[in-house]
């Protein structure tokens, strides 16, 4: 589904990604871990198409299309979803209307009729139950005055509504207490299926207690320096990132 080959990317002339290679198939859940500043969020931004980042080398294929050629909105309409680490507030725009606009833009792109209010409401009710989000949250302005947990839950709700092919979850666990984390993780687990790929970006292992990844990759200095199965995450938890980063630094010297 997603094939990243030798991606290099800069921001303000500074190279952050230095040759990333990653293949993700439908149905798989990959976790990308790494210390702060390793380039995890940059990878998410580059895939979503954030314009501040300049891709200098490499290719990304998404569902047989050249992802880097697509506009931000077309990537989204093709089925790429990014759950933001810091969801943005838009005063005066109700969450429901926002999501309705997004859903209908996507439908239009795929040549489908827009959903009417009734059909939309019906789907919304279903998905609300799935991710345990409260109706009152959805009538409020998007993310305005939401708590950290509410913001993240709202991201997962949007994911449920937009039914992406590939969901990138950028530090979705950050800033959540244990109860909120459990609810958010439950929501994500319910959205796992054989047609959907999920890329989890996280600093901590604790999210992976709730969402079991098929693969774990460690990102360091803009490269994936180690890949493995979920046991790798446990090893990281136990030994800290140092055991990998030291190894890598040493190898780099030699």
């Amino acid at each position, binding site marked *: 589904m997603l094939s990243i080959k030798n991606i290099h990317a800069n921001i303000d002339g500074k190279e952050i990604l230095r040759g990333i290679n990653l293949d993700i198939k439908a149905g798989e859940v990959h976790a990308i871990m790494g210390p702060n500043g390793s380039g995890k969020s940059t990878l998410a931004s580059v895939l*979503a198409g954030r314009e*501040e980042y300049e891709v200098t080398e490499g290719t990304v294929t998404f569902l047989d299309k050249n992802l880097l050629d697509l506009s*931000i909105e077309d990537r989204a309409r093709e089925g790429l979803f990014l759950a933001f680490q810091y969801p943005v507030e*838009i005063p005066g725009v109700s969450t429901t209307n*926002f999501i309705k606009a997004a859903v209908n*833009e996507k439908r239009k792109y795929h040549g489908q009729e827009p959903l009417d209010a009734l059909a939309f409401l019906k789907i919304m009710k279903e998905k609300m139950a799935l991710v345990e989000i409260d109706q009152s949250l959805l009538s409020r302005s998007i993310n305005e005055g939401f708590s950290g947990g509410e913001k993240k839950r709202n991201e997962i709700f949007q994911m449920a509504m937009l039914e992406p092919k590939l969901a990138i979850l950028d530090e979705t666990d950050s800033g959540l207490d244990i109860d909120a984390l459990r609810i958010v993780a439950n929501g994500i687990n319910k959205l796992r299926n054989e047609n959907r790929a999920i890329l989890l970006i996280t600093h901590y292992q604790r999210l992976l207690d709730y969402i079991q990844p098929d693969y774990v990759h460690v990102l360091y200095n803009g490269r994936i320096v180690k890949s493995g199965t979920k046991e790798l995450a446990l090893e990281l938890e136990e030994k800290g990132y140092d055991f990998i980063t030291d190894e890598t630094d040493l190898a780099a010297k030699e």
Partner: protein
Amino acid sequence: MNEDLDMLEKSALNDYKYGFTTKIDTDIIPKGLNEGVIELISKKKNEPEWMLAWRLKAYAYWLKLTEPTWANIKHPPINYQDIIYYAAPKQKEQLNSLDEVDPELLRTFEKLGISLNEQKRLTGVAVDVVMDSVSIATSFKEQLSEIGVIFCSISEAIQKHPELVKKHLGSVVPMTDNYFAALNSAVFTDGSFCYIPKGVRCPMELSTYFRINAENSGQFERTLIIAEEESYVSYLEGCTAPMRDENQLHAAVVELIAMEKAEIKYSTVQNWYPGDKEGKGGIYNFVTKRGICQGDYAKISWTQVETGSAITWKYPSVILKGDHSIGEFYSVAFTNHHQQADTGTKMIHLGKNTRSRIVAKGISAGQSQNSYRGLVRASKGAINARNYSQCDSLLLGDKCGAHTFPYIEVKNKTAIVEHEATTSKIGEDQLFYCRQRGIDAEAAVALIVNGFAKEVMNQLPMEFAIEAQKLLTISMEGSVG
């Protein structure tokens, strides 16, 4: 590719869809202003002697004044001798019913979305349509008169209800108030008149649609609304004009009078031709609007959505004379390309326990300049007066300007005045967030702007809120760079 072309075509058409001209025989008097012209206007309208005397007095006063220059606007000097002060579509003298209105005129208003046709017209909204210098027709007049509500053109009111007009005309905005009010008092040609008797809640929205059609003419409308004790009325005005390279002057005066426990809700959707992208043409909208809460517990609420005009200069105000009276001002002013707006309000607290609330939202795009100017005054006698003002500005792009000029004058210690102001730009983060959800930049900006303006839009009568929202979206097209 095809899709791109489609979009381009659509937005070009959408630029200003009311810019057409109606070809109709028009009764026009020569350009220029002097006593003879005023006498001619008065004669054409078959006015009583006292009205002409009033006009001439105003004219004499106007001659002594100079055009104000304090507003944050720029324009070449206006040549008042180069304006036509009376232009009226020719039609039969006396219409017995709306069916007798010239079909070309009916089609014009049909095109503007105002149907005068008995079957098609908006139920629940009575409309007075004014083209250039005259009122063409007023709907639901009979039904309203059954409950004592008078809704007609001001010209008709001068003929049929002289005692009411004489008593109230100029009582809120005196002819000596300012340069444009004096000019209007001398040359006003038409406008609407509403009278709501004691204890009557007007069962439908009253509305006036103003249209400028004739070339080189100015429009000088005069509107007077009187709400007697414990009555209620909601009134809405809309306005459009053809696209022309020359600037045209619209100098109106609106006066509202609310007696004890009466409420007047006055909404404006202003969409005069704003001029082209280079700033050529467009209407100069220099308007004086003021209401007085004459009695205790009276309430006046102004809501305006301003998207049109090359220049807007207006400050719908409330004089809070009655104790416990309430004044409100809700405004969205959107300026694009080279438009200039200097708009706001005045809340003059005289009575005890009076309250006022100001919510002004300015949105600037292109190279436009958008200013909020507002005065809150609490006089000595305004014990426990309260005001809350909130002025928010949103900038689209970096060539436009947003300015706030609040004036606060408090003469007694019990008054509480609060003022909050914010200026923001649409953030890259907000745009990216929307686009990542599949909403393109243009739609995202529309969404964000409508969200920004929502608090004010919510104040509009339902029938017009959706129209106003569409208008805002259309006006914004091409403002995303």
